[in-house]
């Protein structure tokens, strides 16, 4: 933290005056920022850079996450990332093609039928190959951490509140599905307690089988209650639209979704040309805008206090995009240090361009307003 920033922070904490605007940052800005970081992570296998990206995400999350249940999900994503690294390395050990010559140990090989020719199970395991697997796993874990950061900074429900009216109903279905999981866990706990009270096994196959039906029954019952409540509160008052209008809009939305998925794949897959991905994503965006315009044209919904998109949002989104652009450029220009050679293994270097862009991506921790609930809780 530079001296001026420290000064600004100190001033802010001692003087929560009228200039200190507490508000939610537009969830879209957080997601753009986080996805920018994720794209950056996908362009490098340098463990130092990947570690820096996770650190940047962690700093921003700890500075700006709300005191709400979803605000505490970041660490869960980190744990999940660690598991992914372990699994990735284990796959490398079991199925990987050996690189390099530093043999660490030898696993018994298994002969596979001819159909699986080319797949090797067991055999020599080299240090280089484990390192390569670990780097790859770390990259996946970093991408996941970026998604986790976005999730804890802006809950999926809030992101959906800012989607256009046409997508809203699909969005609500997603939100209900998302809130279902934690409810199921609560129910499972209750049902298991009841089983214990009746002196029945809680663990093991019989325990699980005995708990499943009451839990699912409860879930079904609750969704019926929720549906009744939503119906009584005016959900689904749709303005009149013709079937043709609805179909065209739906086709456009689905088409844009498909284009977008292929585009994302092309962007993230290092072997495809980036320009193809960019073109695909751009056309997906264009089709989506048309579809959403059509579908939402006569929706009766209005929106309560939509999050404004102001200076902090521009800076946040831009800082994520700058990081993504810098990493993509560095990868195209083959700046040394973006990939870390494993054979022979070398100490990773720190390319200046990438590190500088990550410093920019750290900005949202200071330039964005505090979430409002920090005070009221």
């Amino acid at each position, binding site marked *: 933290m530079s001296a001026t920033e420290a000064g600004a922070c100190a001033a802010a904490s001692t003087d929560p005056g009228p200039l200190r605007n507490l508000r939610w940052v537009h969830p879209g800005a957080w997601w753009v920022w986080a996805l920018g970081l994720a794209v950056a992570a996908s362009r490098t296998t340098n463990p130092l850079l990947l570690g820096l990206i996770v650190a940047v995400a962690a700093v921003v999350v700890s500075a700006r996450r709300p005191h709400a249940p979803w605000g505490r999900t970041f660490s869960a994503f980190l744990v999940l990332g660690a598991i992914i690294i372990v699994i990735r390395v284990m796959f490398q050990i079991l199925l990987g093609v050996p690189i390099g010559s530093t043999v660490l140990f030898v696993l018994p090989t298994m002969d596979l039928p001819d159909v699986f020719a080319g797949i090797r199970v067991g055999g020599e395991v080299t240090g280089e190959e484990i390192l390569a697997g670990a780097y790859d796993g770390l990259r996946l874990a970093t991408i996941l951490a970026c998604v986790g950061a976005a999730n804890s900074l802006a809950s999926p429900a809030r992101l959906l509140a800012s989607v256009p009216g046409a997508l809203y109903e699909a969005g609500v279905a997603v939100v209900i599905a998302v809130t279902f999981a934690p409810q199921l866990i609560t129910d499972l706990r209750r049902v298991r307690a009841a089983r214990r009270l009746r002196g029945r096994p809680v663990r093991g196959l019989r325990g699980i089988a005995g708990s499943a039906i009451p839990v699912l029954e409860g879930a079904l019952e609750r969704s019926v209650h929720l549906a009744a409540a939503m119906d009584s509160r005016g959900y689904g008052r749709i303005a009149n639209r013709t079937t043709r209008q609805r179909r065209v809009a739906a086709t456009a939305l689905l088409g844009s979704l498909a284009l977008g998925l292929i585009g994302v794949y092309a962007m993230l897959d290092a072997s495809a040309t980036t320009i193809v991905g960019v073109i695909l994503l751009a056309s997906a965006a264009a089709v989506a805008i048309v579809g959403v315009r059509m579908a939402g044209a006569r929706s009766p919904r209005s929106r309560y206090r939509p999050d404004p998109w102001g200076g902090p949002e521009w800076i946040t989104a831009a800082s994520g995009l700058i990081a993504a652009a810098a990493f993509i450029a560095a990868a195209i220009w083959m700046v040394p240090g973006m990939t870390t050679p494993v054979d022979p293994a070398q100490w990773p270097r720190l390319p200046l361009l990438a590190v500088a862009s990550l410093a920019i991506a750290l900005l949202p921790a200071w330039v964005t307003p505090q979430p409002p609930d920090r005070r*009221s809780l």
Partner: protein
Amino acid sequence: MSLPPVSPTPVNPTPMIRWESVTVTYHDATRPTIEDIDLTINEGELALVIGPTGSGKSTLLRTINGLVPHFTGGTLRGRVVVDGRDTEGHPPRELADVVGYVAQDPRSGFVTDTVEEELAYTMESLGIAPVVMRRRVEETLDLLGLTDLRSRPLGMLSGGQRQRVAIGSVLTAAPRVLVLDEPTSALDPGAAEEVLAAVQRLVHDLGITVVLAEHRLERVVEYADRVIVVPGGGRPLIVGEPTVVMETAPIAPPVVRLGRIAGWSPIPLSVRDARRVAGDLRAQLHAVDAQHASSTHPTPPEAADRSALSVTRDLFVAHGSHFAIKGVSWQLHAGEVVALMGRNGAGKSTFLGSLVGLHAATRGQVDVAGSDPRSLRGAELVRTIGLVPQEFTDLLTRSTVADECHDADHDARVPQGTTAAILSDLAPDIDPATHPRDLSEGQRLSLALAVVLSGRPPVICLDEPTRGLDYDTKERLVTILRRIQHEGHAIVVATHDVELVAELATRVVILADGEIVADGPTADVVVSSPLFAPQAAKILSTPDAPARWLTPSAVMSALGDAS
């Protein structure tokens, strides 16, 4: 009627909700749930709907916004007209701007993440302009006292707050009618008062028509302009002014029962009204008291064995990083009925859970009949201690009552037929082939209780057993529990129901924030408490002579002794 009306009747009342010979029959039902209803509720009224469980109160309420039949299915004959709109042509979503409906468990109806978003949700669906939405949300936050909670996640609210948010979330759409299905049955006395005060304010200040179903009459009857009794079984509704209906209604809160005993007319509906006329009764009772200085009520039964059945020493139980129980030490003896009281979230359920070994003690010891409940498994546990949890239907897993009883015998390793015998004792006339879900609430509770009693555990715990029970079923439960007590079991009941405590408990333990703040004989603990005192004690106490009569029946027997 020669009596002057309690509240002046408007000269030309405007009808707000009108039922015209309405009959509702659900699919697969042999007979209509409600039959031939003709009723009008006027603008600005607070109508209280009462009646036994399963009599069709909820169905009646749900016809107001068209959930019946649009959502539930079934057929509705006749017409329901709300503010000039026939529900036949208007499904619930088209009535959302006229009728605000809050279901029994508000948690199941929340759609968004935080209080403020939840308050705006209905308005968003209705397409109300953003400027108007902003203003109404602020007004509603003030009106219901939710300002400090505006950005709180909905999962972090207390019971009373949750109910107020649920009311607020339909109120922002500026409905003319508010329909509340048992708004206070899950709440502690303090939170219930909070919610009812808010409702009363809506009626007085905004002129909203409120239709409210509730079992806890002692909490609501004084606020009602009109009482609608739904007797069930196809019998006609009884409708009238509360004072008139309450004189003869089959179900009545303690204040009314006391009024009937003392012959007060008009019958008082609130503690305040009753105190004003209770001077004679008080004097009479104190005279009786002087004669029988030794008699006390309720008499704690002579416990044959005073050795403790359950002991906890310095018990701490943590949920995550927060202690739900902090240093509780107590003893439980055979023949005792202990009422565990306290706010929602005070640690009552956790304490019961740790008694039966559902929660591990972070520090300290739990001992039940000589062993640590955590170490007990299977039949051993079932024969040592039983708990009827708040969601007691969780205990029931089979598709017929007979199978359920059979399983319970098997679980407890007792001879076949034991549970069925207990059940027929608790609730006669249950067809063993019925699905537990098709039983009435009271019958289902009896079944759960029979399952727990099958192993004859010396200690029986019940968590909020009277939530959603009508007066009849509650009375039957009290009888059953008294009998179990006299058989030498110790009973622990966590409850908010002060009248149940007055009827049943020999000892009251009040928990606050995980600690015991009061522990003693029922009369000593509850009479001095502003929140936990039963109505009879509130009416009969004077500052210098706290009353020892906690229930109308106690008063009756005291007067009977005197004559």
